[in-house]
């Protein structure tokens, strides 16, 4: 089994950001809660590697703190999607053609009619803005992604003879789903999980950009971009730095997902929506 180059590059990028996010719990170059107006909008320098923002805060420290928010939100959202979507998909597949299957799948279709942004709008309108909204909104949208994928993959296994052999051995559909089907679709879920993780980063950035996600003082890349919007012509780095942070992390995760797929099973088909 050779490791694809894209996987190494992608994993390298992802690990860089995750390490930065973890490091921010212990140390950042500057304290982002300390404002220093005289130092504002400085371009990158030896003192501030990525420059400073409109309030004089160190951009590198902000990017590290923002990585924390992005990664946490996206990871939890994938957790919600997988945690609910995979069992639902397995259940639907085990009872294929039944009313239950129909209800689960139509429910999925319905959620697909609510883009995560719309869910976030609804939640915010009712409960107010916050990072939790982003997690729930993105997480809910991930459920049908995993449920459909799981059901489709599980159905292809239900048609195989080894499942019939397990049934002849008296095993229940639930047991077969856990013992035979889940291990065989695990690769697919890992690959799709990576892709949803990267989509979660993008969605979190968009939500906090329009003010429906993380609220100050929590740092977030989307908020950094929202702050940068009116300053982009004076100090382009305030927009470029968080933008590139998002692009590099998402690119890294996507390369990782594609690489994992190539390594684990080239036949896996990833849904990228």
């Amino acid at each position, binding site marked *: 089994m050779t490791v694809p180059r894209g996987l190494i590059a992608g994993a390298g990028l992802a690990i860089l950001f995750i390490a930065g996010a973890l490091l921010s719990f212990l140390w950042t170059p500057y304290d982002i809660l300390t404002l220093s107006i005289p130092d504002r909008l400085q371009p990158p320098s030896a003192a501030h590697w990525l420059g400073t923002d409109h309030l004089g805060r160190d951009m590198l420290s902000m990017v590290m703190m923002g990585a924390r928010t992005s990664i946490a939100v996206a990871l939890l959202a994938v957790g919600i999607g997988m945690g609910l979507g995979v069992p639902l998909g397995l259940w639907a597949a085990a009872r294929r053609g039944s009313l239950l299957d129909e209800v689960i799948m*139509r429910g999925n*279709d*319905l959620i*697909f*009619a*609510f*883009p*995560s*942004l*719309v869910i976030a*709008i*609804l*939640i*915010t*309108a*009712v*409960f107010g803005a916050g990072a939790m909204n982003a997690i729930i909104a993105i997480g809910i949208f991930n459920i049908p992604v995993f449920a459909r994928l799981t059901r489709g993959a599980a159905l292809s296994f239900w048609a195989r003879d080894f499942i019939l052999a397990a049934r002849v051995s008296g095993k229940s559909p639930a047991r077969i789903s856990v013992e035979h089907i889940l291990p065989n679709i695990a690769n697919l879920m890992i690959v799709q999980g990576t892709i949803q993780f*990267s989509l979660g980063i*993008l969605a979190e*950035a*968009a939500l906090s*950009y*329009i*003010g429906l996600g993380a609220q100050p003082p929590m740092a977030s890349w989307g908020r950094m*971009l929202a702050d*940068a*919007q009116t300053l*982009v*012509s004076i100090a*382009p780095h305030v*927009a470029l730095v*968080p*933008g590139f942070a*998002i*692009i*590099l992390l*998402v*690119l890294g995760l*996507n*390369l990782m997902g*594609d690489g994992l797929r190539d390594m684990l099973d080239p036949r896996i*088909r990833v849904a*990228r*929506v």
Partner: protein
Amino acid sequence: MIRYTATRLISLCISLIVASLVIFTVVEVFPGDPAAYMLGVNAQPDTVAALRAELGLDMSRPARYLAWVSGMVQGDFGQSYTYRTPVSQMIMDRIWVSLPLALFALVLTVLIAFPAGIYAASRRGGAGDIGVMGATQLGVAIPNFWFAMILVLIFAIHLRWFSAGGFPGWDKGLWPGIKALILPAVALALPQAAILSRVMRSSLLDMLGEDFIRTARAKGLSRRQALWRHALRNAMIPVLTIIGLQFSFLLAGGIVIEQVFFLPGLGRLIFQAISARDLIVVESVVMLLVFLVIVVNFAVDIAYAAVDPRLRVRR
């Protein structure tokens, strides 16, 4: 075909009913009393009661739901709590920005993705394929609103080809309106086009591995002919699914992009409504967005049957 359309139509209606129930429940049942919100904590109880009566909040919830739905069917979305103007009027003013933007972006997405995906698939493993795939890998990673900011920086601020934002209104003529939407549509479309190109390519490659392509080649078709005549139409089935999903992303993404370009679309309306706690507006706009998504997915289902004869008889 008629039966297929009929079943899809029924499923469309059910989706709409369930969606409206979900939205109504979330917005009207959870947050308490909009009248009290609007008047503030110091309001007199009788003022609140009067407002409640005026807004129809004194009815039972099922009655309110029915009134809301039957109103919507007739094009009456109720009165804005804040502005006291018909919500339908507010929506109509905005939708002629948001909908053209989403459709414009959808057209751009398809116009970019189809040639790119077909080109990459027909040159599988070659330099052209690797180039397109690299570009799409990057395109998928770029947040559309950031890309929009960069476009503004380059084309509006530095080159001054476009204005940095705002919308002149369609009454100023077709071209000024379209011109104002070009940058937003490009920003929305490019990341989605990257996704669709990849789907197009992989779907085509799947089809090129099918037995019927070998049959076509045995008839004397060249690779290119086999791709255009046999693989493409079969490959459209998964591509249509993605296009349907992408429409909802373009519509929702438009809300974000409108913020970058200060466009007076549904996005602006909804954010004003959220900050003013004008729940009836939020509810109506969300319902409208969901309605559009469901209708587009219905159209995709019908398109499936046009592409795939197997669907016309089954289901």
